[in-house]
């Protein structure tokens, strides 16, 4: 029974089938929008456009393929198969490297010469004398090439196991703060991801965003984005850090990344006909160019309409760093635009049933807080895969055997594990060193 299970996991057909199934899962995740990378608005839109697929999506979890049970099972079987295969590969590699080898097959020629001369000619081609027995001397070039496959398998196991550790234990949270805003630990993140084995992601201390400094090239492309953060402990002590894209900070084991999301935050007051006020903060992504708008859609519990917004960095379209941006707000009710207004700071205007006023403008920026373990394992796994692949394809082992016959003749056999025609020159060089006796 155990032997049959082992045979199943080691079968080349099983491995191929598993690879194809994983490939199929990746393609499915590409075709169907995934929750982790699609906004709820876009998700709803997709479901409305594809009602036929919705039951299948719900049944098979096609909108979150990588966190479905069936995908985890598939990955687990693949991992199991790889682990068993790695142990088998180790046994095979030990045998191939240190065993007596198999002299059958390959090319050979016979020669009458001093053994030392033959050995020297073979060693000159970069071959090492390894193992062999009393009747046969064995020489291998690149014996470590026999370990390429082991490393390749081990690297994949290591990378997958480490990524599982990361997936199960990671904590990740995105904050989008306006200049001067304080985030209190334990309050909601903009988005939060956490592994199955972890609880809520709670920062050890409060954090506030002190300032945001975007810089632009003359082409309006973003040159750099720098923010200053302050962590404050319960005693009221502040620790200030500077964060930038590609310049992270490590605070008490939590790594903080500068998100690419930033822009202007518009403080808008909506007043209805009864004089009731509703305050909104519209955080809109910075426009790509001075004459192009940045966009954002918003649904608020207090407003029964979809709020569509856009803004230009400069009302006069002359600068990316203007203090005079222009905001355009649209109210949409069931796909129909019921009001639109363009406002600058301090201005008011009619927006459908409301009077809208921009009461202030500040900058906002996103920061990603990450608490994970296991990353070095993933990179180490990748590195081992590359070493394994490199050894397998760039250093295929080649072997010479010397066997002495009773007549005093030496039979010299040569073979390569792979790409024989690439390396037969080595054999020819040794054979020609002994007068080019005709190979048999």
């Amino acid at each position, binding site marked *: 029974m155990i032997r049959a299970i082992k045979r199943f996991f080691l079968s080349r057909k099983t491995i191929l089938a598993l690879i194809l199934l994983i490939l199929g899962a990746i393609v499915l995740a590409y075709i169907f929008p995934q929750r*982790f990378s699609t906004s709820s608005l876009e998700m709803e839109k997709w479901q409305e456009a594809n009602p036929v697929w919705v039951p299948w999506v719900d049944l098979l979890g096609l909108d979150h393929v990588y966190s479905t049970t069936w995908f985890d099972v598939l990955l687990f079987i693949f991992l199991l198969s790889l682990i068993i295969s790695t142990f088998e590969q180790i046994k095979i590699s030990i045998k191939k490297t240190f065993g007596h080898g198999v002299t059958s097959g390959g090319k050979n020629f016979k020669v009458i010469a001093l053994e030392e001369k033959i050995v020297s000619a073979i060693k000159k081609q970069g071959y090492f004398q390894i193992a062999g027995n009393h009747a046969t001397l064995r020489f291998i070039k690149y014996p470590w090439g026999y370990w390429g496959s082991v490393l390749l398998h081990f690297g994949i196991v290591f990378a997958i196991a480490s990524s599982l550790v990361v997936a199960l234990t990671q904590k990740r949270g995105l904050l989008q703060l306006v200049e001067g805003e304080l985030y209190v630990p334990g309050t909601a993140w903009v988005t939060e991801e956490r592994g199955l084995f972890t609880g809520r992601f709670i920062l050890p201390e409060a954090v506030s965003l002190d300032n945001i400094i975007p810089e632009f090239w003359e082409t309006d492309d*973003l040159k750099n984005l720098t923010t200053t953060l302050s962590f404050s402990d319960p005693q009221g002590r502040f620790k200030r850090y500077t964060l930038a894209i*590609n310049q992270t900070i490590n605070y008490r084991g939590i790594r903080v990344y500068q998100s690419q999301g930033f822009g202007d935050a518009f403080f808008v007051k909506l007043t209805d006909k009864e004089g009731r006020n509703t305050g909104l903060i519209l955080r809109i992504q910075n426009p790509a160019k001075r004459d192009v708008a940045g966009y954002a859609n918003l649904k608020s519990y207090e407003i029964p309409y979809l709020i569509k917004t856009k803004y230009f960095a400069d009302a006069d379209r002359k600068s990316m760093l203007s203090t005079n941006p222009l905001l355009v707000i649209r109210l949409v009710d069931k796909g129909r635009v019921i009001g639109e207004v363009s406002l600058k700071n301090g201005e008011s205007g009619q927006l459908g049933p409301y009077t809208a006023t921009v009461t202030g403008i500040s900058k906002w920026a996103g920061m990603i807080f990450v608490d994970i373990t296991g*990353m070095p394992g993933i990179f180490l796994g990748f*590195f081992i895969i590359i070493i394994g692949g490199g050894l397998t394809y760039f250093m295929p082992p080649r072997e010479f055997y010397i066997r002495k016959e009773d007549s005093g003749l030496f039979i010299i056999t040569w073979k390569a594990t792979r790409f024989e025609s690439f390396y037969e020159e080595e054999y020819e060089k040794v054979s020609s060193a002994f007068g080019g006796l005709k190979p048999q």
Partner: protein
Amino acid sequence: MNNPLIIDTGLHWAAVIVYMIATVVNTYGLIFKREKAERASYFIIIAGLLIHGIALIYRWNIAGHGPYMVKYEILSSDAWVALFLFLVFSRIYPKIRPASIFMFPSTFLLLATGLFLNPEVRKLPPSLKSIWLVLHVTSYKIALGTILIALTLSVFYILKKRTRIEWLQRFLDMDTVDIYAYRFAGFGFTFWAIATLTGSVWAYQSWGRFWGWDPIETWSLITWIFFGIYLHLRRFFGWKGEKAAYLFILCFLLSLVSLFFIPLIQTSIHSEYFR
């Protein structure tokens, strides 16, 4: 002549012209069995490679970053790396020299395609300022170059088997063409893996995530798995010859989709480039 873009495109056009001459001389030498012409074509193409190299350095200088931001410079540097690799490999493995009949025109077509696109310089966004990005991009370019060589050999195999083209029959025996195609596919697979690794280190450095399933990452992984299946089938299922050649052509088409088409049609963190 004060506009640096005119000098830049001028140098690139000069390289295209030299490449075209080399291609004509090379094709003539190979088809009509004129060894002198074939040898001369290598001197001409090396001259073209030098001019092309100067053009790329000039471009690097005016753009302030490596050639990996806009289609024009990406295609140009892809062409340069592919040709450079072919020349190096044809020196190490002289048997693959006839592949020049495909590699030379591929190079100048890649370059010429780039020249018909907008050469405007785009400034480097901050997320792309990383040594890991340079390694990531370089590895993909090396992978593409070796995959192109493997593709040429796979096509050679099919043509040799399916047609009676006289000049083609002179070059290499079928088994050798097949084994070289296998070998270069292995090279491509390894460099594709290195590119993925360096990319994930870069992503981790920039966003705290080693993998984000963005469309280009996903397609790159799909392509890598396909190359893996190709190698697996060859090694363990004894696939070779025509069957393997057709599968490799499919892998090559997938690599084109990953490298060139997905960045055009989908938004991702990678679409900072090639748009």
